[in-house]
């Protein structure tokens, strides 16, 4: 009788190694193994990412004497804040940080507003040509900015839209280079750094809203603008946070537009480019005795400078990082 035969074969001895037990062992072992493998991989990769920062921190606190001491590798023996003092002075640190913050913060706000408006317009309104225009938005992401670099530069040098300004100024336009105006104009019209991407994000986000919300607002007597400001925007917080973060960080690190438009104003990204040279000059004019500068010491100071320029971003990131991952998930770029 098949039933009793199966029952007999299933009677297990505690120490019997039958098929099921082995399978369970194997599965548990492989799960532990995968956990271990994953932990090693993640720790290893995190180390690769964090190593430069740790290195810089250790270099920044080292005293001059420690540079040539072969027993000192990561933890300095003589801790000094001298490096910071010299670098802050050379780079005019606080003023530069202030400029960078103003620039990045300002463009962040203007870009977010402009892109939210445009994204909402593309997402929720059907008008002729909306698809073609959105394809043009994507085009602005694809075209490398260097293609329009020369005309943009010349346009801002002699800014004159549709000849209106020329009427007041005796035929010549305004020279907007060297001021914040190019940035204001480009972010206010949603054509700033990677603004096409932000419009895309907002559009995907707004498209994910059900139509019923707008219909309910209409029934309740809200006009289009009221619907936007009182219903759509408050719900758009994830997208807004994402866009603001990206806009701020990318503008902070940008060297392309800042060197083109803001040669005379100090911002962190451009200051960093010349910091090696500045430090070299400062040291060689201070070393009245020999005029020869110690390259290892210059390197120490340059590393401190880089650390100081990364510090504001890292601190800001620590506060904001939790929202970052959450917001991107909820913007609806995906699915």
């Amino acid at each position, binding site marked *: 009788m098949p039933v009793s035969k199966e029952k007999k074969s299933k009677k297990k001895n505690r120490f019997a190694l039958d098929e099921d037990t082995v399978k369970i062992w194997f599965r548990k072992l492989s799960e532990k193994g995968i956990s271990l493998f994953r932990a090693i991989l993640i720790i290893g990769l995190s180390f690769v990412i964090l190593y430069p920062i740790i290195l810089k921190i250790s270099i920044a606190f080292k005293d001059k004497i420690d540079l040539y001491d072969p027993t000192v590798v990561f933890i300095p023996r003589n801790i000094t804040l001298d490096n910071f003092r010299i670098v802050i002075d050379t780079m005019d640190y606080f003023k530069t940080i202030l400029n960078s913050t103003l620039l990045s913060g300002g463009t962040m706000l203007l870009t977010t507003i402009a892109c939210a408006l445009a994204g909402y317009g593309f997402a929720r309104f059907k008008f002729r040509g909306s698809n073609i225009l959105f394809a043009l938005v994507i085009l602005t992401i694809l075209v490398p900015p260097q293609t329009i670099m020369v005309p943009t530069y010349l346009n801002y040098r002699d800014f004159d839209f549709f000849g209106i300004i020329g009427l007041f100024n005796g035929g010549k336009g305004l020279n907007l280079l060297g001021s914040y105006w190019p940035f204001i104009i480009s972010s206010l019209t949603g054509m700033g750094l990677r603004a096409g991407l932000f419009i895309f994000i907002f559009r995907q986000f707004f498209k994910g809203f059900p139509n019923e919300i707008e219909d309910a607002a209409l029934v309740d007597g809200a006009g289009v603008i009221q619907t936007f400001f009182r219903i759509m925007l408050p719900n758009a917080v994830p997208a807004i946070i994402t866009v603001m973060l990206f806009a701020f960080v990318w503008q902070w690190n940008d060297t392309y537009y800042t060197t083109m438009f803001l040669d005379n104003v100090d911002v962190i990204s451009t200051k*960093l480019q010349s910091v090696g040279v500045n430090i070299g000059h400062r040291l060689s004019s201070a070393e009245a005795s020999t005029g020869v500068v110690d390259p290892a010491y210059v390197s120490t100071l340059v590393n401190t400078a880089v650390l100081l320029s990364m510090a504001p971003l890292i601190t800001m990131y620590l506060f904001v990082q939790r929202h970052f991952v959450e917001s991107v998930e909820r913007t609806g770029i995906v699915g």
Partner: protein
Amino acid sequence: MFRKGKATLEERKGYWGWLFIAPWLFGFIMLFAIPLVQSLIYSLSELSLSPTGISLDFLGLHNYEQALTHHVDYNRTLVESIVNMVVNVPLIVIFSLLVATMLNQNFKGRGLARAVFFLPVILASGVIASIESADFLQNMMQTGAMVEETSSAMTSSQLERLLIGSGLNEVIVTYLTGAVDRIYEIISASGVQILIFISGLQAIPGHLYEAAHIEGATAYEAFWKITFPMISPLILTNIVYSVIDAFTENEMTTLIQTTAFTNFDFGLSAAMAWIYFIIIAIILAVTSYFISKKVFYQ
């Protein structure tokens, strides 16, 4: 436009759409469309600045010819940039997919790991990268006070020589060790892609995995049959994003910038930029065409 009296509700709403995109449209025309056309004109002529404005001498295709045949660096830089991109983009996408899969599982310290992996996006400054590669002190710290090896501790030339010497295919070994050497570059460029993949992985409905588990699928099979098709649209997105990222800031763009602002050869710079753009457009079009054929849309 006005067929029977007033416009319908839909059409009236449509006019509001124009209002919302008006700032963008103004910016697009003034800051993109017109400069694009102007750039094309400049690339076909020789531009010189004078106190009263600019003067254009029509040159036809001379600038293009100059860039491709006479210019010392252009061809080389162009090929290097393209090869760089072709090598890096697959590595970036594969790497970020693996990392996203790992970071999507539940383990202690997951939030911290995600924060660390996204850090390079925050710190991605071209200036910092160029300072670090030329840095004296960091090299000194890596090789130790005595300079015995000329390469820094993070390269793998010894291992590479060993593998090739033992008979493995040279092309594969060179490619893989090259990938490992570039690991820092790849990790730095993967932040946004990892984020997008994580979001995509979380959007996959869990019941698919449960059903597969009941049917007896292994984790490996589940990955290839469920995970991979479901995120294939995002693979396309990430490939396009990585290609654009690779082309945004590299040797080629600095060459274009120096030609314009250091050598004051604006026409040539515009021609270089247009050739660069056309090649990017072709690469993107071909890549997206072939990949979107394989994408599984639901």
